[in-house]
């Protein structure tokens, strides 16, 4: 099914939900104010529904809004988003019966900064970007430029294992085929693993020197749903709000441990970071560690307990004296 047809179906369904009173809100994507962007649309008004779109630029993980909205919600979810929703259900943050999931088989999202890097041009100067199977066609200066999808998709999309939503009420279109490049998506982590521990620590020190502690990573993360974050506590004050690298680093390490087994590698934290800290090199590594140590994948089974509240008698303990 083409995006256009999917859009029509989505609008039709969403309108019906609102009219029949099945949901109080609909959460989806509308065109953003800049070229090739989308912005979340949260609405109760069925006249807004015609603004809903489906395209390869709908990057946000909308499940982050579920914990804040009261009432029944119809939500548009890609593969990774649906796993975040399952993860929220596991943590008792969302009631499954209160949401209607519009599943979108996601063929991967286009990373505009990669496109800019390839073309050496600003995104405003591009005329059109279209996705066609494993090719991406970009119109610039009236000329057609052809790319393989693996060259311009987000890193986390390249390591995507489940492009089709794991949980949905309505699925738009067929199961999508996977365009993956597992090696490329793991490049940065592999490079870090090859370093000595001193080099790694120096690397992260340098990265977190830039951190502004804007907490955008925390705000955008569906797994960061604590009512009060440990960072904001004042008694005890675990770390200072002043953005020094020591505290920045400590914040991010603990944030990663808190979302271990919840993070579905949606890549939102890295995408949102205003100072381009490669946060996915942390979250993806944590994702892998949880898999290696506990044979667990986040957001796959809504009846399973969250991984760090559960245990197995057979868990490895070779590190314990």
């Amino acid at each position, binding site marked *: 099914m083409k995006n256009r047809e999917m859009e029509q179906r989505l609008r039709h369904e969403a309108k019906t939900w609102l009219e029949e009173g099945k949901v109080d809100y609909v959460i989806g994507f509308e065109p953003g104010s800049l070229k090739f962007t989308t912005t979340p649309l949260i609405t109760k008004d069925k006249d807004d529904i015609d603004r809903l779109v489906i395209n390869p630029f709908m990057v946000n993980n909308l499940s982050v809004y579920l914990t804040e909205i009261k009432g029944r919600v119809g939500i548009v979810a890609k593969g990774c988003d649906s796993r975040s929703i399952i993860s929220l259900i596991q943590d008792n943050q969302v009631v499954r019966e209160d949401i209607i999931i519009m599943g979108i088989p996601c063929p991967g999202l286009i990373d505009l900064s990669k496109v800019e890097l390839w073309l050496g041009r600003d995104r405003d100067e591009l005329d059109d970007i279209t996705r066609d199977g494993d090719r991406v066609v970009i119109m610039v200066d009236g000329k057609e430029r052809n790319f393989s999808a693996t060259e311009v998709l987000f890193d986390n999309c390249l390591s995507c294992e489940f492009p089709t939503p794991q949980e949905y009420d309505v699925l738009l279109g067929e199961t999508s085929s996977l365009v993956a490049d597992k090696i490329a998506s793991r490049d940065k982590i592999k490079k870090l693993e090859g370093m000595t*521990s001193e080099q790694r620590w120096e690397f992260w020190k340098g990265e977190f020197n830039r951190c502004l502690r804007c907490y955008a990573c925390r705000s955008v993360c569906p797994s960061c749903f604590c009512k009060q974050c440990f960072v904001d506590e004042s*008694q*005890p004050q675990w770390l200072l709000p002043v953005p020094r690298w020591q505290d920045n680093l400590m914040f991010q*390490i603990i944030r990663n441990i808190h979302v271990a087994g919840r993070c579905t590698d949606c890549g939102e934290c890295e995408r949102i970071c205003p100072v381009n800290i490669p946060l996915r090199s942390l979250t993806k590594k944590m994702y892998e560690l949880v898999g290696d140590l506990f044979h667990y994948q986040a957001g796959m089974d809504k009846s399973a307990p969250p991984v760090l509240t559960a245990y197995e008698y057979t868990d*490895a*303990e070779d*590190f*314990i*004296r």
Partner: protein
Amino acid sequence: MTRRGTVSPIIRMSTNIATTPAYMVELGSSIGSIYILDLAEVRVKQESEWEPKLLGFLCKWCSYAGADLAGTSRKKYPANIRIIKVPCSGRVDPLFILKALRLGFDGVLVSGCHPGECHYQTGNYRARRRIAITKKFLEYMGIDPQRIQASWVSASEGGKFAEVVAEVTKELKEIGANQLFADEK
């Protein structure tokens, strides 16, 4: 995941132990105020007779009693360990471990009951998962995994407690001082 309404054991401890270095006492007595950790300076002063500082989180039912037994049965073990009594090894948040390293401890030891012997049935199993993930993740960040240690010590294992502390102290001496969070001069 974050716990509310509790006073940090790390901060509480700093008023308990006479041997706590000056910078930690300062932190304890001025919660909320800005503190400056000048580890480098502390290290220069201590270089001649440097001894690793180990922070132990001991479960009240097993390991703490084990440490007690080590004392009453006159077992010798290095005085490098500072002990915080916790209700269960499952109480130890990875945040405590990192905070201790942030404050300049050279190593952290979490010790609880043997599997199957937890007073609360399952606390140590949960601790096991948390410590495993913390250790692996901090290793990836660039922190020597030797700095994060765990052991099972029951109330009757005073000898084992003394051995564990001796071994860990020896290993920490080999790795050297924790300069991870020190500012470069």
